[in-house]
């Protein structure tokens, strides 16, 4: 006892509270900065491409379409904008999925693909491409995405079921997930082995990860999914932060960790499966987006979750722009470029630790 009554806040406490509030304000500023950077990267992505369109032309295309030729309008509305939007959305979705996964599995190496989500999606796509599975009223290119989505979601549900049967801890979940990765990779290899030359080529291209499949329709679907899932993630942010203090401690604080983990993995699988279904396998974003966000803002998930959305969208947007200019005249699959663009940013942040922000 040092003589102070509980109601008094000492000078030191007052200065700590002030420092804490400054830190919160600083984090909000960083979030705003990331949002601005995303917007800038989006614009850069829009004006980058084989057919040279200037910013003026682009704005004209948006505001007064009569000034442009029909091909220019087509490029802006059917190619550039859906591609650029898809880049933002996929980056945001995979990064949000990654951060949730890293937290609930207590594993910094976790990403949406650790548990076989992308392998399962590839398997689903492979089945649709090679076997030509179809449903009435569903067009073929949607069939591939739909099948990829169903397999990805199914694999996560299977994983959850296995984990529940054994009452397993996080390590077991990760091990089971890795086992699923190998199973699905083997199945994909098997399908490739028995498939025709043409189907094989289509399959390889599918699994590379490319924004060239972006259309207004699938941009809308992914946008709606992201809008629907994100609020639930944000609502869980307090519980996710508490989970970082240890599972037993979080449970003793009244958090139903099993349920939190299940709901979180469900969100992860919906986000990752939808993304992978539309653009194929794009690794790295889901792993590194969250780490960059964590280095910048720490692990208070009220800030970490939105920051991860932004960092993922930003890297993906920059990668999309880079994919159009790295090899002149060639649009590289963006999956190849994400690591090339992302690694320097990541290394920079690791070696230049921003103070003691957390």
């Amino acid at each position, binding site marked *: *006892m040092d003589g*102070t009554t*509980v109601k008094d*806040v*000492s000078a*030191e*406490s007052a200065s*700590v*509270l002030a*420092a*804490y509030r400054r*830190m919160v304000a600083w984090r909000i500023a960083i979030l705003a900065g990331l949002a601005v950077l995303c917007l800038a990267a989006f614009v850069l992505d829009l004006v980058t491409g084989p057919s040279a369109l200037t910013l003026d032309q682009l704005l004209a295309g948006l505001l007064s379409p009569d000034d442009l030729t029909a091909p220019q309008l087509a490029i802006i509305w059917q190619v550039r904008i859906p591609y650029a939007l898809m880049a933002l959305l996929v980056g945001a979705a995979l990064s949000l999925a990654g951060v949730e996964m890293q937290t609930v599995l*207590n594993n*910094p190496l976790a990403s949406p693909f650790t548990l076989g989500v992308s392998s399962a999606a590839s398997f689903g796509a492979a089945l649709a491409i090679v076997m030509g599975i179809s449903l009435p009223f569903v067009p073929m290119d949607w069939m591939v995405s739909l099948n990829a989505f169903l397999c990805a979601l199914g694999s996560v549900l299977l994983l959850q079921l296995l984990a529940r049967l054994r*009452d397993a801890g996080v390590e077991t979940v990760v091990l089971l997930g890795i086992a699923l990765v190998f199973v699905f990779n083997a199945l994909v290899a098997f399908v490739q082995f028995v498939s025709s030359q043409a189907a094989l080529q289509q399959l390889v291209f599918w699994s590379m990860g490319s924004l060239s499949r972006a259309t207004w329709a699938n941009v809308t679907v992914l946008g709606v999914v992201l809008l629907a899932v994100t609020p639930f993630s944000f609502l869980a942010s*307090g*519980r996710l*932060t*508490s989970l*970082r*203090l*240890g599972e*037993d*401690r*979080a*449970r*003793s*604080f*009244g*958090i*139903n960790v099993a349920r939190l983990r299940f709901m979180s993995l469900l969100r992860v699988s919906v986000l990752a499966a939808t993304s992978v279904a539309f653009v194929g396998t794009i690794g790295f974003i889901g792993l590194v987006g969250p780490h960059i966000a*964590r280095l910048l803002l*720490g*692990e*208070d998930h009220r800030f970490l979750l939105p920051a991860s959305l932004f960092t993922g969208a930003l890297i993906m947007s920059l990668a999309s722009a880079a994919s159009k200019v790295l090899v002149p005249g060639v649009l590289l699959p963006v999956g190849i470029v994400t690591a090339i663009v992302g690694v320097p940013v990541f290394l920079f942040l690791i070696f230049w630790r921003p103070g*003691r922000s*957390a």
Partner: protein
Amino acid sequence: MSDVDDRLRVSRLSTGYRGRRIMQEISLPAFHAGDVTSLVGPNAAGKSTLMRALAGLLPATGSVRLQGRELIGRPLVEWSRRVTYMPQSLPQGVALNVLESVISALRASPMGATAPQRAALERSAVEVLERVGIIHLAMESLQHLSGGQRQLVSLAQVLAREPRVLLLDEPISALDLQYQLRVMRLVHELARERGMIVLIVLHDLSIAARWSDGIVMLSRGGVAATGTPAEAITSETLARVYGVSASVECCAKGRLQITIEDVLDDDAAFR
């Protein structure tokens, strides 16, 4: 409040892990509000298991009643309003600062019916840090703390929730001599002030004897001795439970003086 039974009563409690029962129908003397009880015993005696069962973290049968209310079979969120458990360690590599971690402990689930306002919550987090004596670490990252400092932060997190029953699993194992005593004194004071029931797992019998109102000595998943420190810690119980020869004397201030002499029989402790 006075006519409400505010004791914690544990009777015929059985618990353990999946497919492995650790404790079979143990009953303990009632724990009184304001009392500090130390849980002692050799390694693998079941101390942490009992703590986790009392926190509602393990499947259990039997009866755990607090203030006349049965807790066994109730959902975790109900336990969490009354009982808080401090595990032995904080996880490594968490990018939160000390104050954030305490705020997060408060925010996890409201202790009362309503959640306190944000400013009130931040204030009580700061007050706890001041009380534990680590206000100067408030803005430090958990990653930069020493083992002892982390233990103090861990303690601050659970104290912040102001539970009726506080379960501390080896809270002073990483602390230096001075902080061991400071923490024990703080826990003792808070128990008295708040009328809190404190159960604390300790390895150091001298500290347990000095700062506890009661002792529960466990051995191989059962209760070996209970009572006041002088009743529970005797050369006979030390020989039987720990397999050591020791002399226990009551010195001038009424405190127990425990002198461990030697291992009785090399096999006894590991049998």
